[in-house]
């Protein structure tokens, strides 16, 4: 089998400014600037740091989960069930707590529920080698259904001592936002500088080559699904603390926003490409876009339409950038 790769010996190196600038993350940064300008024109009330910060706490939990989802997509898999996982874990936590279990123990039970959900996704996708996208559509409906069974459409209250995570301020910044930034830094370092991070890129780029290079792709992918399960559970309980009560419809439809954050950040849907920084910026972009539209009292319909268009444009753009740079 003679291979047909181009044989230019000395390919012209891309100039450094080109490498730094022509990246999906810069596209997201550009969109943030455009978003900020647009939103402040749309409504004078928009440009206020504390308001944007407060609005970010509403989606901070989802953004944290989107960071881990980015790593799962880079590794070549996908998971549409984290939003449902957040709801079910929060319901399990509140239900167990409501039934008299001590708070710390209830939190652990919630996290274990998330882990179990991650394990189910891992078993179906990796062990049974089923396409993870269809598996996680099944688990997304299944987890949401379980949450409905546990909580009915009652809303289970959460003890006062646990409520108000978003009221806790760290140097004037709400705690959920601080946690999001810290998670981004930690995960960015893991993905960017550790062996595991490097191997996630390698598995996503070419799983066969990874096998031949002695990389245990199965173990890493199972680990990612489990991590996503636990982090989703933690995020679900953070939301419970923010809201003071939990219903089965927590973060309903959140899966679209999480995938959107990853895509807007430049994560390549087929794996191998993407960064934590990209998703981090995309999370802020989404907040700016939706807050800008809400404070301008635009019909929610427009927000839905804009979200849909953004996702489609983002996939086409990243597809185009990667296809072009892969000469």
């Amino acid at each position, binding site marked *: 089998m003679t291979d047909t790769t181009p044989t230019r010996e000395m390919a012209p190196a891309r100039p450094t400014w080109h490498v730094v600038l022509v990246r999906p993350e810069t596209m997201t940064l550009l969109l943030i600037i455009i978003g900020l300008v647009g939103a402040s024109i749309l409504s004078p009330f928009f440009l206020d740091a504390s308001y944007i910060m407060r609005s970010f706490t509403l989606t901070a939990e989802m953004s944290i989960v989107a960071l881990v989802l980015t790593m799962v997509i880079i590794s070549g898999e996908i998971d549409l069930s984290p939003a449902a996982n957040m709801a079910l874990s929060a319901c399990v936590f509140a239900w167990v707590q409501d039934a008299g279990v001590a708070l710390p123990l209830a939190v652990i039970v919630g996290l274990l529920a998330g882990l179990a959900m991650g394990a189910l996704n891992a078993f*179906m996708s990796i062990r*049974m*080698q*089923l*396409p993870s*996208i*269809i*598996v996680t*559509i*099944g*688990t*997304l*409906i*299944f*987890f*949401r*259904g*379980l949450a*409905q*069974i546990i909580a*009915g*459409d009652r809303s289970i209250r959460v003890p006062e001592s646990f409520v108000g995570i978003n009221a806790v301020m760290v140097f004037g910044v709400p705690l959920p936002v601080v946690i999001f930034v810290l998670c981004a830094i930690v995960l960015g370092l893991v993905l960017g500088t550790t062996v595991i991070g490097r191997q996630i890129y390698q598995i996503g780029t070419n799983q066969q080559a990874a096998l031949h290079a002695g990389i245990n792709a199965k173990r890493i992918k199972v680990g990612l699904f489990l991590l996503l399960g636990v982090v989703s559970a933690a995020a679900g309980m953070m939301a419970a603390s923010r809201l003071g009560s939990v219903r*089965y419809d927590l973060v309903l439809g959140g899966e*679209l926003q999480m*995938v959107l954050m990853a*895509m807007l950040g430049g994560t390549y*849907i*087929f794996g191998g490409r993407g960064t934590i920084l990209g998703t981090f910026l995309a999370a802020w972009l989404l907040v700016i876009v939706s807050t800008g539209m809400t404070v301008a009292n635009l*019909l*929610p*319909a*427009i*927000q*839905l*339409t*804009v*979200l*849909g*268009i953004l*996702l*489609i444009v983002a*996939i*086409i753009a990243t*597809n185009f950038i990667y296809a072009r740079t892969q000469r």
Partner: protein
Amino acid sequence: MNLVRNILFRREAGILVMIVLFCIAVGLYKPQFLTGQSLRIILLLTPLIMIGAMAQMLVLVGRHVDLSIGSMLGFSAMVVGLMYREFPDLWWVIGFPIAIATGAVLGIFNGLLVTIFKLPSIIVTLGTLSLYRGLTFIISDARQINRSDIPSELKLMSRTSPVFDIPWIILIAFGIALMTYVIARHTQLGRQIYALGSNPEAAPLRGIDVTKVTLVVFALSGALSGLAGILYASRWGFVNPSNTGAGFEFQVIAAVVIGGVSINGGVGTVMGTVLGVLLLGCVAAALPLLGIPGSTQNAIYGSVILIALLIDRSVRQRGAASISRGGA
């Protein structure tokens, strides 16, 4: 002795047995479940899902997924609803071609994104799911079409028809099932969809115009969603921008996957899908009778999809293992 053909056949027989057993079990506990009236209730629950399932079956056979059928249903229903409200004296039957055409246009847009930009259909339709729902809000200015705006002849179609008093809506649904059977089994288009799903790389080599077939599949999915849209207006008598068609895609995927359509493409029968829809209809009708809160329905759909995936896996494993032991 062809092993796989039996498995496929057994799969449909398996679903039929499940339906019978389920109905007998419920009937023992609640005898009224087995009356003619109860059969009518079950059949009245299935027409929209049936039409959606037919479209989704062809999409899945072509190794694609269309998540936007719920929003396409909602948008088409809204277009027709607005038309009835703004032009009350129009002949009400005009609604059907308009709904189908509207759906087809949205479907073709999906198809273009998938074929021109080579994007995975599941992510594209996840985007258009939200886009079309947003457009539904915009064109309706977020207001509902009330029962009084929907022509009574259209609503009548969900109640009776000259044929043994079976509502038109059920006749249309089974008509679409028959049409899909003819397309899938007896037209070049149908066979090429199966071929495309069975071996996408080999399809172009065998002279199959992959782009055209994919576009037609998505257009069909849109058109049938449009038809389901106007029938929604007939069945429930109103069109609401936020919940008309919401969650429709999950019910349809559950029905299609139970019906034995494989998510790896190339495998799926109309009969299996019809039985899958009927099974879900029985479950949906039985829950309230047994006093089980409706909230368990989602959990049932989810678990049904997961179990069907595992069954599909084991069938494919036994089939695939025997073909190729590659290696140079």
